[in-house]
């Protein structure tokens, strides 16, 4: 079973619909026990970092999220879920979960691009990753965000995307993988990524 972590953020149902379309057994849940027992965990999210962290802490989900990430459970962060597994976000100056070392930065307003970064963009692989197996390099993914992940170590970046600047649009370490884009809204390549996740043993 795939646990989709419910912390009252957006896009949970979209992620659930995409999983169901792929005939994957999944459940939206905020129960620490269910998350702990799940075979895999998806950590989605749309919204603001500060409010998200507040809710996660009030639901006592912070420890169990760190625990499953630490214990080797295949783990997929999406959008805001990807940002708050880093150490800290400039959005609301929120202290985040610290699963992968790094910061969440705001796109500078001076780059001459619109914010949010909204629409379809490509990703450029730095290294291969099982979640990207079989995907055409020309594949585009749907993004909508004003802040971007900046892992401390280059080694944790799997793929980059250009939007005014170059940022890490996919990061990963061991059993934790996380994407800034929305695979559940990215057509076939997005569904393929979710399907790859459903078969992934958590090894890079």
């Amino acid at each position, binding site marked *: 079973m795939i646990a989709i972590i419910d912390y009252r953020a957006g896009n949970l*149902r979209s992620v659930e619909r995409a999983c169901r379309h792929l005939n994957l057994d999944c459940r939206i849940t905020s129960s620490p026990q269910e998350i702990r027992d799940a075979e895999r965990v998806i950590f989605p999210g749309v919204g603001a970092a500060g409010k998200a962290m507040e809710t996660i802490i009030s639901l006592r989900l912070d420890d169990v999220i760190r625990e499953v990430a630490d214990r080797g459970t295949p783990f997929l962060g999406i959008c805001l879920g990807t940002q708050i597994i880093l150490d800290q976000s400039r959005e609301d100056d929120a202290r985040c979960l610290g699963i992968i070392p790094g910061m969440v930065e705001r796109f500078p307003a001076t780059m001459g691009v619109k914010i949010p970064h909204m*629409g*379809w963009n490509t990703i450029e692989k730095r290294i291969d990753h099982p979640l990207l197996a079989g995907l055409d390099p*020309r594949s585009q993914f749907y993004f909508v965000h004003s802040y971007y992940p900046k892992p401390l170590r280059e080694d944790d970046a799997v793929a980059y995307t250009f939007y005014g600047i170059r940022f890490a649009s996919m990061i990963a370490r061991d059993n934790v993988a996380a994407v800034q884009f*929305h695979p559940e809204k*990215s*057509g076939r390549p997005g569904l393929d990524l979710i399907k790859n996740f459903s078969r992934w043993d958590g090894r890079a």
Partner: protein
Amino acid sequence: MLSKRIIVCLDVRDGKTTKGVRFQGNVDIGDPVAMAREYYEQGVDELVFYDITASHEGRDIMIDVVDRVAREIFIPFSVGGGIRTIDDMYRALDAGAEKISVNSAAVHNPDIISLGARHFGSQCIVLGMDAKKVPVSASIHSGYEVVINGGRTFTGMDALQWARKAQDLGAGEICLNSIDADGTSDGYELELTGMISRSVGIPVIASGGAGTPEHLRDVFLRADADAALIASMVHFGRYTIPGIKAFLKGAHIPVRDVV
């Protein structure tokens, strides 16, 4: 590089896609779910469902359409038409829409934008705006006035000022429809689109007037639109999404390849 988006608009009345045809009024042209699936497979980047029903029953039918679309189509789509309250927004988003578009409700009550942005995030809130060219005056500096009721009611608001205000209130995107160009198939209103798109920091979708792929090329290259809305040029089979994208690619405009 970020692609320019091609968005297909489906007007929905009583659960059917409909289209205004000159001298005939609105004619039903198909099942919105089947049409959405077809455009999804063709590689459209986004869809808009515009509810033109006025009744409560119609609203429930619309939510059902949204729900059925969301089960099989995995690209973003927005819902507009008759959305007035946070509860209306919640229902559409919960049924699977990515964004909601507010138009006349925001003119009457601008706070709906900030309320919606606070509840669901700016990325969910699209300001839909109908604008009409008018003589420049003390109150309408830009020469474009915001209109509602399909262009029949003038609001006294300057289109450029309204766009900036909506951005400040928390709108994440503007869908800008030219009432003068709408339905003509003679091309987008480039002057209006360029003026608004260059004056705000959020994405602008050009709407009204698309008749040929050249019109999309022009609105991207000459008016800096971030996305272009089309309807009849594909609904009646004159053009396909892959055909339009191939043309734009030839004009060196970044578009999404469907692979």
